């Protein structure tokens, strides 16, 4: 069995938190958007393409979480680096930053996407405005993603 330093193990937890929570939010959000899109397509087949676009939007949070998780793993576990417990806690912080931000952002975006799909099926002219409203909850995930990157860079996990 490979010996893993405590700090590195904590970084692995951080990676899990990053993709776990971000994926949860993204999944719930995408489920809500997909349920709305299916309803819209049932009424108007031409809604398929637009429904797919709205359903795809809450995917980004999972991508951010996935990226942070990969970075944490590449620079710690996969690099065979023995991280100190303090750095391990920073890695958990980075994972939590994108994980929780992605959770809220993904669910919010899913609700907005579902509502936008309803608006577009009711009035096709609402498409562009629906996309803008749906894109707004993306910002929280971007904040979480940025903070996670900054934590990793300045604590020396990445490029240290």
């Amino acid at each position, binding site marked *: 069995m490979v010996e893993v330093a*405590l700090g590195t193990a*904590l970084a692995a*937890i951080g990676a899990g*938190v990053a993709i776990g*929570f971000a994926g*949860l*939010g993204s999944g*719930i959000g995408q*489920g*809500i958007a997909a*349920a*709305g*899109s*299916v*309803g*819209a397509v*049932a*009424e*108007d087949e031409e*809604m398929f393409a637009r429904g797919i676009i709205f359903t795809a939007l809450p995917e980004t949070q999972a991508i951010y979480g996935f990226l942070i998780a990969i970075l944490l793993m590449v620079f710690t576990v996969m690099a065979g680096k023995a991280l*100190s*417990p*303090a750095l*391990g*806690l920073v890695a*958990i912080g980075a994972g*939590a930053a994108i994980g*929780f931000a992605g*959770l*809220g952002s993904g*669910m919010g975006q899913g*609700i907005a996407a*579902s*509502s936008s*799909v*309803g*608006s577009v*099926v*009711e*009035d096709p002219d609402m498409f562009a405005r629906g996309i803008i409203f749906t894109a707004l909850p993306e910002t929280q995930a971007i904040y979480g993603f940025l903070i996670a990157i900054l934590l990793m860079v300045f604590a020396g996990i990445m490029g240290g």
Partner: protein
Amino acid sequence: MVEDIATLVTSLGFPSTEAFLGLVILVLLIIGAVVVIVTIRPVQNIFPYTYPNARVRGRAGKIFTEKQFSEIIEAGNIDEVKNYLRGFPDYAKYIDQYSLEKALDTQLAENYDLIARITPANSRDAFKFLLKKWDIQNLKSIVIAKKVGLNAEETLELVVPFGELTDKLDALVDANDINEVLSALEGTEYTSIIEDAIPIYEETGMLLPLEASLDKYLLENLLRTVTTPEDDNTALLKSYVGSMVDATNLKIILRAKVDGLKFEDIDPYMISDGYQIREWKLKDLMEAEDVAGVVSGLEGTEYAPVLVEAMTQYTETGSIGAFEIALDNHVSETAKRISLKNQFGIGPMIGFLSKKEKEIKNLKIIVRGKREEGFTPAMIKEMLV
């Protein structure tokens, strides 16, 4: 730095840094679980409504606009109205199959049926019960048809193929008289209502008691399905059904006052416990001297401003229609308010049904106007609700 942390951990009474980290991870896990539960809970209420609401909003988008209504009103005759409606797939499928009025009712009934099928479980009972509205409409049509001696084919033109009696419709339509209608209805909840109302009809020649009994059955039981709201959505459904019940009770009372009927004449047709206008208040209103007494008796309720405005019109024209329109508009406004307030729940469904009802009502007004002589487009427009 590491030594400082180790000293801090030891001073806190932990035997090792690992034990401290174990506690930190446990605390983080608990915080994570709390965050997930708190964040997901509101979504649990929204999720079941996303599919039905998207479908309903898709249909709401096809409701005729004012411009489209103007185009229909400008149609030269009934055939032009039919041709116009053929341009819309929702109507086209029924236009060539049924008479125009039946096609319109069938389209409306199809929407009720859709909502009863796709609505989430906690409001399904109420919407399913609401489907009985078509059973009741069909029964009224069949009883009238049999009384005036229409044959099966003519009777069939009056019934809408929706509701819970669809498997009995053939037998009901083929019935030669009321007794055969009653035997076809055997085992249903309507037998006793019709049995009780028929002697009154035979004695007085008035169909109102039969219609009022059936309406009472529908609304009283509909209100029962939403008596104990489980959540915000069912509470809003209750307020919508409640406003329908109150409006129906007030219409009966106002009509009775215009016709000079007494408390005991109308009491059997009242829906026993209204929503905002409770039993004791209904009794007071029923005992009012005249229409003005009923309106003033409503002071303090949300119906007072609505009916006071209609009172002016009633005084000018003497037509009870002003009150009926005002009460119908109040129910529509309630639906609109609910649909705006609760966009992620039951709101869009209630709002859609109310808008669809209004659309069909207006289309029927136009059809009637086109069918009868002497109605100009301006006059028809004036009649729209």
